[in-house]
């Protein structure tokens, strides 16, 4: 897969895996072991960490009346990270290092957890005002300043 697409889309094999996982969850309410094995093969230790985040219901989808959305993930350290809904971005240090700088990883565990929470339907929902959503998005930049 071309690196130029890495910010927007997943490799076809991952898309297919997530699609099959979603179908299996809908039918059996659980992710089949073979899917978990493949997930670990593709994503390594991040897969376990992401599944743990999903189990603890750490992913929240925040939306406003405008329809704009953003994800927040409560990390294992207790810190909350922001993940955009439309492309691959996470505010965690691992995304900056492993994904952006080293290109070792396709996703950080938080972004993977977002995808898995969509598959399992375990994403919390939080509705905020348009102004509050602006503040959440802008807070990402202010934290780094």
């Amino acid at each position, binding site marked *: 897969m071309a690196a130029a697409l890495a910010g927007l889309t997943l490799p076809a094999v991952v898309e297919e895996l997530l699609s099959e996982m979603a179908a299996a969850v809908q039918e059996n309410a659980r992710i089949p072991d073979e899917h978990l094995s493949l997930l670990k093969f593709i994503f390594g230790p991040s897969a376990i960490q992401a599944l743990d985040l999903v189990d603890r219901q750490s992913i929240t989808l925040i939306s406003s009346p405008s329809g704009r959305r953003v994800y927040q993930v409560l990390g294992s350290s207790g810190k909350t990270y922001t993940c955009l809904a439309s492309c691959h971005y996470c*505010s965690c240090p691992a995304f900056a290092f492993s994904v952006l700088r080293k290109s070792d990883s396709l996703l950080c565990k938080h972004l993977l957890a977002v995808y898995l929470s969509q598959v399992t339907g375990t994403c919390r929902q939080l509705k905020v005002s348009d102004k509050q959503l602006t503040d959440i998005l802008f807070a990402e930049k202010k934290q780094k300043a």
Partner: protein
Amino acid sequence: MAETLRRVLNLGTSARSGVEDTAEAGPPLLLLGGPGSGKTALLFAAALEAAGEGRGPVLFLTRRPLQSLPRGTGAALDPLRLQEVRLRTLWAGFPWKDCLRYLKVRFQYPPSTHELLQLLCSAHEARGPAPSLLLLDGLEEYLVEDQGPQDAAYLAALLLDTAAHFSHQTGPGQGCGLIVALQTQEEGVSGDALQVSLLQRYFPAQCWLQAETPGPGQHRLRACLDPGGLGPRAEWCVAFRPNGEMTITPWPTQAGNLSLDKGSSSGGQP
């Protein structure tokens, strides 16, 4: 937004097909080139093309007001001075349809990275019709202020997220395109190569502008559009006449003609 730029680049040729006449926006596009390579002129041409489609306004973001409008249509105007637009239209034979298109292009001038981020983060609070095209000229000026790759990634991701939100508002089958212009440095300055590589993650389609030097008094560029695996690469010759007017023709494809020196453009042009 590769398809909109492809339509702009094909406007000067007869190479238009039914597929290219659709209003399909195409993937987000990064327009790269050195100083004076015609990025602003092409951006503005894309703005007029999209404005003429009647699908919605066009939002053009740039750090400072354009001193004169790029002369794709044979006139130079201050976009903020509507009275001058009317006078020019009446007395100088300025194309009326282009005047109408100008009025659909909304210019905003965020003076700093902070202001640009604020604008993008609050885009969903704006009322009125969603733009059909979001353009940003001079991304490098906003990246200078940033601390590192994650900041650059956040800016790029926010641009995409904003365009995605506008697309959601316009509804299925329409969408909001995104074209961002980035000035690359001259060969030998490698600092921006990592930055370009990072931005290419978020912009599947790229258009490189490379200056050619055909002779004194002439300014010609080679525009190479790569739609990011979603279509064939194509090249055009973009020339600027002494009066500033831009003309676009297909790049000659016969062997032995002007060859592209792939090493002369910084940033890792493919």
